[in-house]
């Protein structure tokens, strides 16, 4: 089994894209875990069909090779096999549909009222994040811009075209609501390890709910072509322990209120 495990090289060690990566990033939310499990369920049927069809094809090529089988068959009908090859393939999509629809509808369901709402606004070519939960209506909300760090300014160990100057700090194990919208052209807020890809459509507020299950730093990239610097518009979500979240936000709030 160890040999077999070695053969299945799939799991990326961090929550960002890896060179030569095969498979999804490690799941950080229940939604992403559900997506990964659904993929595994469907892949089971894929393997079933691939092995079966390849076997039958190879055997047919073997048995009916012109040297071994000089006289070709003239059979044109076979009622039993036609019934079987219609019914079995129609059952497989039923087995795929059940977990697929279960996941789809569970993703739309917002069971728990989110504790925090964050607005992610896409611009050409940077992102703005707003935390509006901590101010009264006449105060300005905690807002900051997030630019991708240019290649020349990267420190050792940082990822190219992924690191940003200001990360989105969120508490772990907390229900979050992310509202995604653009300021100009369409963008898309995507973080693969959270199982999130939400289009930012001009004139529209799209909402997603996530709950990050472990602390960590999660990377994503813009997923809707938005101009010449579409590749330079990355997303970094930093999930911190709940007890540290308050101090992180207040540290960010203080310079803002100082400016005001």
């Amino acid at each position, binding site marked *: *089994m160890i040999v*077999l495990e070695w053969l299945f090289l799939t799991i990326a060690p961090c929550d960002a894209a890896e060179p030569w990566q095969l498979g999804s990033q490690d*799941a950080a939310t229940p939604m992403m875990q559900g997506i990964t*499990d659904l993929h595994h369920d469907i892949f*089971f049927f894929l393997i079933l069909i691939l092995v079966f069809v390849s*076997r*039958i094809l190879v055997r047919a090529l073997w*048995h009916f090779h012109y040297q071994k089988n000089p*006289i070709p068959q003239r059979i044109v009908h076979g009622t039993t*096999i036609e019934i079987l090859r219609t019914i079995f393939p129609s059952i497989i999509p039923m087995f795929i549909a059940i977990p697929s629809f279960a996941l789809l509808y569970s993703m739309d369901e917002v069971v728990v009222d989110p504790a925090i709402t964050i607005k992610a606004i896409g611009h050409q070519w940077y992102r703005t994040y707003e935390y509006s939960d901590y101010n009264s209506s006449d105060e300005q909300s905690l807002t900051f811009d997030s630019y991708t760090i240019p290649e020349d300014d990267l420190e050792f160990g940082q990822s190219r075209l992924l690191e940003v100057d200001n990360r989105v700090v969120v508490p772990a194990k907390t229900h979050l609501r992310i509202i995604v919208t653009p300021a100009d052209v369409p963008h898309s807020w995507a973080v693969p390890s959270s199982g999130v890809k939400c289009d930012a459509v001009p004139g529209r507020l799209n909402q997603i709910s996530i709950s990050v299950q472990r602390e960590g730093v999660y990377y994503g990239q813009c997923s809707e072509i938005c101009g010449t610097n579409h590749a330079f518009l990355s997303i970094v979500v930093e999930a911190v322990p709940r007890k540290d979240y308050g101090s992180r936000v207040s540290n960010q709030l203080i310079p803002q209120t100082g400016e005001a």
Partner: protein
Amino acid sequence: MKTHLGFIRKYTSMLGFEIFPDFATDFTSFQQISKMAGSRVAHATLKGPSVVKELCIGMALALAAGSLWKMHHWNEQRKVRQFYDLLEKGEISVVVQEE
């Protein structure tokens, strides 16, 4: 049609192989063949493959390969569950402690 077939038969025999066998004799042997067992692919001279046997072997191999994948999936699920259990208990941490 007969003229064309005659031309093709002559042409192919010049090339050394026959692709249009004699219809009269073959039709007779075809009648004999069609009376043989349905699950066996009929052949005039050689023993053909059994369709049921090939399908069963194919399904068995497919299920074996699928089982390997399922075992990998369950193993991965177990590792993930173990990881989150240990994280919950505090035995492991993903946060680097500040010095």
